[in-house]
């Protein structure tokens, strides 16, 4: 499927990764336009239900990114998020859902280059994996 352009949603925190992605912009680094960002105050705010909703709505991949450990604007939101993702990933994998479609990362406000690299690597991986038909078929999205 050479023309496949994956749809990737990035759930990011306002203080680190959103700002880091801003820096990617101000530094005029380029990345794949298939990724769109939704802003949250903190990774701690990101409900696992939203990840399910993203897949159900047709996302082929998801990025979840926030502040590095100890750098959270709210001290510990990212630590709570990390525990949640450990369990969530384990559960998805147990249910046979490919967790490599969800990329977790820490991108600080200073890491504009890391953001661009993360987006490009993730898009490339999702492109190789192809559309997430297994999930999209659940709702009869007519993909694939």
């Amino acid at each position, binding site marked *: 499927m050479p023309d496949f352009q994956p749809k990737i949603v990035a759930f990011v925190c306002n203080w680190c990764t959103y700002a880091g992605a801003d820096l990617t912009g101000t530094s005029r680094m380029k990345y794949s336009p298939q990724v769109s960002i939704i802003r949250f105050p903190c990774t701690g705010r990101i409900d*696992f*239900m939203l990840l*399910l*909703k993203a897949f*159900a709505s047709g996302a082929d991949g998801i990025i979840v990114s926030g502040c590095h*450990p*100890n750098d959270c604007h709210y001290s*510990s939101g990212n*630590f*709570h998020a*990390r*525990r*949640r*993702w*450990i*369990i*969530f*990933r*384990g*559960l*998805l*994998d*147990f*249910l*046979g*859902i*490919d*967790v490599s479609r969800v*990329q*977790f*990362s*820490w991108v600080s406000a200073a890491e504009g280059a890391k953001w661009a690299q*993360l987006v490009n690597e993730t898009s490339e991986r999702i492109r190789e994996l192809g559309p997430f038909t*297994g999930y999209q078929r*659940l*709702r009869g999205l007519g993909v694939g």
Partner: protein
Amino acid sequence: MNALQEKARELLATKTVRVVIGYGPGSGGQARALFVREAAQARELIFDETCLQNLAVYLMKPDVRQLGKAALVARPATLRTLLQLAAENQLEENSLLALVPGADGVLSLSTFSALEAQVASQDNELSVAEKSELEKFAAMGLDARREFWQEQFSRCLKCYACRAACPLCYCTRCTVECNQPQWIPVPAHDLGNLEWNVMRAMHLAGRCTNCGDCSRACPVGIPLYLLNQKLILDVSANFNSRSGMTAKADHSLSTFKPDDPEDFIK
């Protein structure tokens, strides 16, 4: 009269408790919950290998609470549930008696420290059989697992019997009932069924005490216990934590350690 019946009779006769929640003979060789409110009825109580239900589920029902102070026949998982409920502010200390039948008679526990001591003395780990079933599952491969669960969930009726049977599903409003936004579609189709079961497993992560009542309640026989046991293992392996061990708030998903594993994070 056996020791349990005698204990129940005494508690009711002395009005120490208003109701003893225990097991009585049911149909089809299964035990059923028995609410004993008169001392004379205590002789109907049984306690054997058919008595599986986690009776703590009744403690969360308003009409049971209205009956007055209760004594509850408790199996090991029930005791963990009581502590977990205590940790979640759902159970006051000394508000009930947990009756633990044993070889030397019936223990009657009411303080949190007594409950904690009893739980600490029993085996709370997953059994070897339970662990090996999970291992088999892990070895199955991603696609096989997906097919397995898709087949299982395709039979889910969204009847919520699992929820009703679960003593930790005491929320008065469940996420599935929220409609602004509608987190989970109402009809029982594949997507909604998956989302419902993922949601329920996530909400029980770090809380489930592995009583198994969800699976026993499921009318179509979905092995829900597998999801809970998987997360019990993950919580234990990653956070070195186990639900139902203490009455103190120590929920593994609302606490953290700075050095929690993060090999999956770029």
